């Protein structure tokens, strides 16, 4: 049987030496990542060092006091304008402080449930607080959760949320929180498959290496309602081919390519004749050969081609078992086998 989710044989047999020629780019998580070592500043004299230490201690103490005031207020369910302002400052300095968001939600929830203009105003103000927090840390789970919580109450514009998330993804196209939030908002609006395919296409055309956009595409196309037809698979193969040629060493397009051929071969709802499948596979193998000739040192065309060849060989056998059409396929491939 052909391999629907082939894994390169050399990986399976431990000949693999994992590598990616291009180092990862872009931000990683705020907080504990990407911070260079704080080297002792040898340019400071003793007095300056004392001053620096005093400043740091003061900063810590002030922050500690802010935390204490707000967390004590939360424990005693006390709210006033000053405390709420302090809590706003806290979440904007440190968006992952989930208990402080809980404090704000506890205050906000009854206002939202009463509805009316008051709810709309409160919702708008709260979204501004969450937005400031996200500017500080665009990858904060707690800030996104809070935003979703406010939005779910229904007093704000989903179009504006979509615009916000598009701005976020302009700044960092791989922010999975942003992509997830987009899918949540789009789900609330009612999924427009065409719009999502157009958006992901735009992001990919900006940068073929946008794995998050390829992933988004796989979600939209893989949804039951849409479904993947043979025609759609061929269109997508044509699209991803550009990525494979443009940057043979970037894995994003190649993983997507593997998914498409896998679906072509095994998805029950993809009704394509065996002979057609074989034709498409042969075309893609030729594509790999073409890319390999352009960049002989790139591993992906070789790795993917191996899998496709395995699949093709399996397809031919399967075709033989299938009856009349199988005999035709096998006969047709008698010369291909010699390749």
């Amino acid at each position, binding site marked *: 049987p052909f391999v629907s989710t082939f894994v390169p044989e050399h*990986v399976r047999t431990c000949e*693999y030496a994992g590598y990616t020629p291009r180092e990862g780019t872009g931000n990683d998580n705020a907080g504990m990542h990407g911070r260079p070592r*704080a080297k002792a500043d040898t340019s400071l004299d003793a007095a300056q060092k004392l001053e620096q230490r005093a400043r740091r201690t003061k900063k810590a103490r002030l922050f500690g006091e802010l935390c204490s005031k707000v967390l004590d207020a939360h424990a005693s369910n006390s709210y006033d304008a000053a405390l709420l302002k302090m809590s706003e400052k806290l979440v904007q300095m440190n968006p992952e402080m989930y208990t402080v968001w809980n404090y704000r939600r506890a205050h906000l929830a009854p206002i939202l449930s009463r509805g009316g203009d008051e709810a709309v105003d409160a919702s708008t103000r709260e979204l501004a607080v969450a937005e400031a927090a996200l500017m500080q840390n665009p990858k904060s789970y707690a800030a996104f959760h809070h935003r979703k919580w406010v939005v779910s109450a229904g007093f704000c514009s989903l179009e504006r949320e979509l615009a916000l998330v598009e701005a976020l993804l302009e700044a960092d196209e*791989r922010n*999975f929180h942003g992509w997830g939030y987009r899918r949540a908002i789009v789900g609330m609006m009612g999924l427009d498959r065409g719009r999502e395919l157009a958006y992901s296409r735009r992001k990919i055309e900006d940068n073929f290496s946008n794995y998050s956009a390829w992933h988004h595409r*796989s979600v939209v196309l893989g949804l039951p309602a849409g479904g993947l037809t043979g025609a759609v698979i061929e269109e997508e193969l044509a699209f991803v081919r550009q990525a494979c040629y443009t940057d043979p060493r970037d894995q994003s397009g190649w993983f997507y390519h593997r998914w498409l051929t896998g679906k072509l071969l095994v998805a029950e709802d993809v009704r394509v004749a065996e002979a057609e499948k074989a034709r498409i596979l042969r075309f893609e193998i030729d594509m790999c050969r073409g890319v390999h000739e352009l960049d002989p040192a790139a591993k992906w065309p070789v790795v993917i081609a191996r899998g496709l060849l395995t699949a093709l060989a399996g397809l031919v056998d399967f075709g033989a078992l299938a009856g009349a059409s199988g005999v035709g396929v096998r006969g047709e491939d008698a010369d291909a086998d010699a390749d």
Partner: protein
Amino acid sequence: FNKSPEEVSLTLTMPAPRPERAQLLVDKHRNYIVKISKSRDSFEYYATEHFRLSGIYWGLCALYLMGEEDALDREELISWVLSCQKPEGGFGASERNDCHILPTLSAVQILAMVGRLDLVDADKVVDYVAGLQQEDGSFYGDYTGEVDTRFIYAALACLKILGRLKDCCDGLAGVDGRGIDVRKAVEYIVGCQNFDGGYGATPGNESHAGQVFTCVAALQLAGALDKVDADLLCWWLAERQTASGGLNGRPEKLQDVCYSWWCLSSLSILKRLHWIDQDRLVEFILDCQDEIDGGISDRPEDQADVYHTFFGLAGISLLGRSGLKPIDPTLALPCEVVDRLCHR
């Protein structure tokens, strides 16, 4: 096309790791963790309060792997952990933080390591955790309703450590007729599987090594590892290794020591640890050590922290190097702690 991938693959020459960092600096890391645990008035102390309980777990487990679990004051530790428990049965990240499923797991992990699970009312914890499950099998993190596959892992791991998971898997009730619907939780995880065989936080979310770990480990705990497309996923995980030898969490992102755990533990559970270049990875982790002040950072020359110190050591332990105690890839606890739990 006549070449093998090995011939085709280039091996880029990376600069050799600094000799001062060529060995695992166990003493320095022990001292670093003890020092951090004592610093009570720094800015960092307040700024990290929202995950302090997890920080203690990372620190204690790291010490345990080095055979230095007694370096922290046990009684003080236990008393502080218990002060984080809330009436609902769950634990908050600190005594001033609301309870949440993630610090609840950390609390249970810490108490397991110090051998004092008897101090916790297991029924209450199970009840709290079970109460967070939703109809579709997913789990809230707390009453405010955030959904993430990490929380399914936290729930199952909690119950496993407390010795209550088998009940739920057998379909028997937990506390007062309320247990965890393991079958539904598995269904939800399966719904989070992506085109690349990986898993995201919710259905449709991009594969991320951290989420992959939580989903694979959760499926392992649920006895449903057959639901994983192991070859496909482990290929994706193997491709996390970059020229530096380190692992990233997603395609085209930077390598980071913490992925030594998230990727490695998944590979280990799925019995394909040999699919990465282990020597290069160990070299990378060692190069991330702070040879002056101790601790391990995300990348060489960066600032160390307890999180990366733990995950770097955990990665080395999983690969059986440097004389560290073995760590269980599913529960992220020393194997001897897990053995003690199993022989209750």
